[in-house]
């Protein structure tokens, strides 16, 4: 077993992997937030207590969201290979793993945003209506604006679970800190890799949570 300090190249390998993790988590967060926002808005509008209640649309969309949420990530990873190839041009690699990460995160974020939006105080919506606000104005100026801190909390949870999933994405050649921890630390018995990777992941999650808490306080 090589000592931490003597292992030349370890820091480089891990730094590189950390960049990959950041890359995967960053882009899949961005894409899933944008793409998850749309179904969240539709769910909020068509919910029984929404601005445009529509049972059929709500139930169908809700069902689709549930189906995608119930897929174990590792299965999704495999099923999506043809789709990933279509989107990115290849099915293996860091960029390619953004696709399954995003797809698994969309229904999650849709549900989280829907819940956040629907928690908006009904009285406030009523007040806006009483001043002659249009549905679009109520949606943007009341629902979305009032829900931003709650949605932010949801994003923090998402980022943290994406950090975890990105480790699994290593299995399709995604790389990242988790992948290094498994390949070097576990499979090659290099405990120092395992320890450093774990510490990095803990610090990363902790950092994201702290930043999220700070922003929640600022925003609400």
């Amino acid at each position, binding site marked *: 077993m090589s000592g931490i300090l003597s292992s030349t190249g370890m820091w480089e390998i891990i730094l590189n992997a950390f960049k990959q993790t950041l890359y995967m988590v960053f882009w899949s967060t961005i894409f899933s937030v944008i793409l998850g926002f749309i179904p969240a808005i539709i769910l909020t509008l068509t919910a029984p207590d929404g601005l445009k209640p529509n049972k059929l649309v709500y139930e169908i969309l809700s069902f689709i969201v549930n189906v995608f949420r119930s897929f174990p990530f590792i299965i999704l990873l495999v099923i999506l290979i043809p789709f990933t190839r279509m989107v990115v041009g290849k099915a293996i690699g860091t960029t390619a793993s953004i696709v399954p990460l995003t797809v698994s995160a969309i229904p999650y974020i849709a549900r989280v945003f829907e819940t956040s939006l629907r928690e908006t105080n009904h009285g406030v919506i009523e*007040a806006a209506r*009483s001043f002659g606000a249009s549905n679009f104005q109520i949606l943007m100026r009341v629902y979305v604006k009032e829900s931003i801190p709650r949605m932010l909390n949801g994003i923090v949870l998402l980022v943290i679970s994406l950090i975890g999933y990105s480790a699994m994405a290593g299995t399709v050649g995604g790389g990242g800190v988790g992948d290094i921890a498994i390949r070097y630390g576990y499979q090659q018995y290099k405990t120092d890799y395992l320890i450093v990777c774990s510490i990095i992941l803990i610090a990363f999650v902790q950092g994201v949570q702290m930043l999220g808490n700070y922003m929640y306080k600022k925003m609400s």
Partner: protein
Amino acid sequence: MIQIQNVKKAFNNTEVLKDISLEIEKGDIFGIIGQSGAGKSTLLRCINGLEKYDQGSILVDGTKVDIKDKKNLRNLQKRMGMIFQGFNLLERLDVYANVALPMKFWGIPTNTPEAKEKIMNLIKLVGLEEKVHSKPRELSGGQKQRVAIARALVLDPDFLLCDEATSALDPEITKGILALLQKINREMGITIIVVTHQMEVVKQICQKVAFLSQGKVLAVGKPEQLFVWPKEREIRDFLREESDKLPETGVNLKLFFFGEGNQRPIVTMMSQELHTDFNICWAKLEDFREDVYGSLVLNMDEKDLEKACAFLDSKNVTWEVIK
């Protein structure tokens, strides 16, 4: 003026408004009072189109409130500010931004000097100039309602609708809010419609009041006429009049004091004149806006009744024999 004609409304199969007709004059503070579930909030929400009604018509200065005619309804809503029991402020906006919000809905710029002055004047009117940049969670209930009042006035409405606006506040704070509403009515000429289950509110500020019970208007009139000695069973129950506990022997005669009437020593004068004694078995004095109104129940022998009534008539005192 708001004319409500034969308005009916049902939720599913329960009728909540059964043939309501009312007229609310310009410049009035008009109360709508009743037990919870009487339909008073629903009626108020029909007036500004938050709720649709099934039959009849509601005219606001001649324009019909019709929720299908979106454009027209929006213009009517602009003329009717509304405040609520739960204040309904946006948690993430400060006092200034909350007051400015309705202007944003109407595409009125809020950063011009005139707009800023207007918003600041309203905040001053409700006495919150020191809280301009506070968030609602930093304010007390009374302060929140003041912000809501300023917000409801920012589009220069002709009407202010109050839905149980003081029901969540304690009596002292309620008085402050009511005084503010009176000031707004007097100085800005805004017609105010107050929905409440609190007698205090009606007594303190309403010039006219409608008593609603089970979706019907039971009585309309000046609060002192309706409530000093109500004839309707439901209103008596609502006021929890103690008139059930009057003596069973002899006759019970009720005297009313309107305004200055209570300044005269009627009872002692009558006692001296008729050379007889009376039992005072029930009495009530109440403030209605600036005046004091009261009623008094005397118990006497049957034989004295005629003379007593004649005496009261000669002194212009209103009376009634209670059976």
